[in-house]
């Protein structure tokens, strides 16, 4: 079968070929559901949210779970992407694809500039600094006449993409994001990142170039977060400062990654599905939803510190999307 018992080791992994087959089958099925319009518009709305949260959560996981950069400011790239799309399509009458491209480009540039500042800080200081920078941008957009100040911008694209089209694009971005994270972890850089996850100081002592690894991951995270957010806001049709640059985006990502399993590739996927359905259910209890989500997060940290996927992997001794290296495996 797909699993194989490895002598001496206490972890089994899914081989790459069976994993590839399962993934292709699953992704094709999802594409079919979107394109053939089997799913109702309502279920497609859920699917879009899940795909995009997976993308953003994988990126936050890469930042926090692997490199120890616990960013509280990913909303910076969400807001920038939202406004880029809005300005590009509504004001400049460019296509949606071009708008998304501009959003990604701006986000990566801002991320690279920010990194000069942010790498002088670590841990808590880094977290607070990312948040503060996002807040500064919110105030900036709040006072910027061209982008509609506090009332924001309505996104007008002619013809406006249909929901199943948005769903297909969201799925594609999601597949690329998961594949990027997984393939990155399988490279030399990924080996360094996994070491950094366990002990950043020791990683540096054995020659891992911590700064370069952080820079690369921060830029990749900004790019994918931006493109996912751009699609998310197109689906909503409107962007304004308090929504685009709100910390609640990052809070959602933290919930997803912690509940799903930090430092695993599967964690953000499981976490996103749970989050989207939970959020929908909790909408019946306005005012209580954040309290309940917060309580779940705290309980998870206390009783399942490795999250659902992390705990399952430990209990079953079996990993999907594993970045493990074995001494007797053939050269890849």
């Amino acid at each position, binding site marked *: 079968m797909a699993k194989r018992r490895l002598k*001496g*080791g206490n972890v089994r992994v899914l081989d790459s070929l069976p994993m590839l087959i399962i993934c292709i089958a699953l992704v094709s099925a999802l594409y079919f559901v979107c394109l053939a319009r089997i799913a109702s518009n309502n279920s497609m709305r859920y699917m879009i949210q899940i795909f995009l949260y997976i993308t953003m959560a994988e990126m936050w996981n890469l930042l926090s779970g692997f490199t120890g950069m616990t960013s509280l400011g990913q909303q910076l790239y969400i807001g920038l992407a939202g406004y880029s799309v809005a300005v590009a399509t509504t004001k400049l009458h460019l296509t949606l694809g071009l708008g998304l491209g501009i959003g990604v480009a701006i986000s990566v540039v801002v991320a690279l500039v920010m990194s000069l500042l942010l790498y002088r800080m670590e841990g808590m200081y880094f977290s607070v600094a990312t948040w503060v920078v996002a807040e500064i941008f919110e105030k900036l957009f709040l006072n910027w006449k061209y982008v509609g100040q506090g009332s924001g911008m309505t996104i007008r694209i002619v013809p406006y993409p249909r929901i199943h089209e948005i769903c297909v694009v969201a799925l594609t971005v999601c597949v690329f994001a998961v594949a990027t994270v997984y393939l990155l972890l399988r490279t030399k850089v990924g080996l360094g990142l996994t070491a950094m996850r366990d*002990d950043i*100081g020791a990683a540096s002592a054995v020659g891992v*170039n911590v700064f370069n690894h952080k820079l690369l991951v921060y830029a990749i995270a900004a790019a994918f977060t931006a493109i996912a957010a751009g699609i998310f806001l197109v689906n909503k049709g409107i962007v304004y400062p308090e929504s685009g640059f709100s910390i609640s985006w990052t809070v959602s990502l933290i919930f997803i990654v912690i509940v799903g399993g930090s430092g695993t590739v599967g964690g953000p996927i499981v976490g996103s599905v749970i989050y989207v359905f939970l959020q929908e259910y909790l909408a019946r209890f306005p005012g209580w939803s954040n309290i309940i989500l917060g309580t779940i997060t705290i309980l998870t940290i206390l009783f399942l510190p490795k999250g659902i996927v992390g705990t399952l992997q430990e209990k079953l001794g079996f990993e999907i999307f594993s970045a493990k290296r074995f001494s007797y495996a053939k050269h890849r």
Partner: protein
Amino acid sequence: MDNILEFIDVNAGYGRVQILNDLSFEVKKGEVYGVIGPNGSGKTTMFNALLGLIKPGSGRIIFDGVDITRMSANVRCKMGLGRTFQIPRPFENMSLYENVLVAAVHGSAQSERFAKDHALSSLKLTGLYDKRETRAGELTLLDRKRLEIARALGTDPKLLLLDEVAAGLTDAEVKDMMELVASLKDSGYSIIWIEHIIETMVGSTDSLMCMAQGSCVISGDPREVIESEEVQRLYLGVEDDE
């Protein structure tokens, strides 16, 4: 070039607190160079200066004929300085093999394909080969200390810095460690070894330096150093107070 390492009048410290005062010493290629000294005498600070974690205010550090005084820690690691942590810091969720592989890939800038054999031979040399697929978090203290050495070897060092690798071990385990260091010397590594256990140092080093207040008090043949008046006064004097 006979010396793998030279410290020439190095002054260094943390902020305004100066710890190393005109420290000078040299380590020959292929020898085990022991460093002893009372707590606070600057042994670990000397390592930090050597590794590039603190920058000397003045003086020079020559490693393998190259002045490394101003080089970054990262570059020094790639040039061949391998270190162990006093308190072992393994990558707990990775196997022993992966721990050493990280060092082999990043420390000596190899591709994974070529790093693999080197990682495995480092594990063999330190006696961890049979446990190579075990998670590092599950190791005993002795094996953790061995892993520290295996990981340092993974970076393909010319000079190995051992920071109290025998501390906290039982007598039998200390003996194992002494044998391991002896076999590393036989494999051609130059070694600097900081330790508190004096018998261990006399038995397994070629040269010995005693530090106090950030300078070298005396250095030379291990037995002569231990029996010298300076060391007797310094070391036993301190112990008498306790």
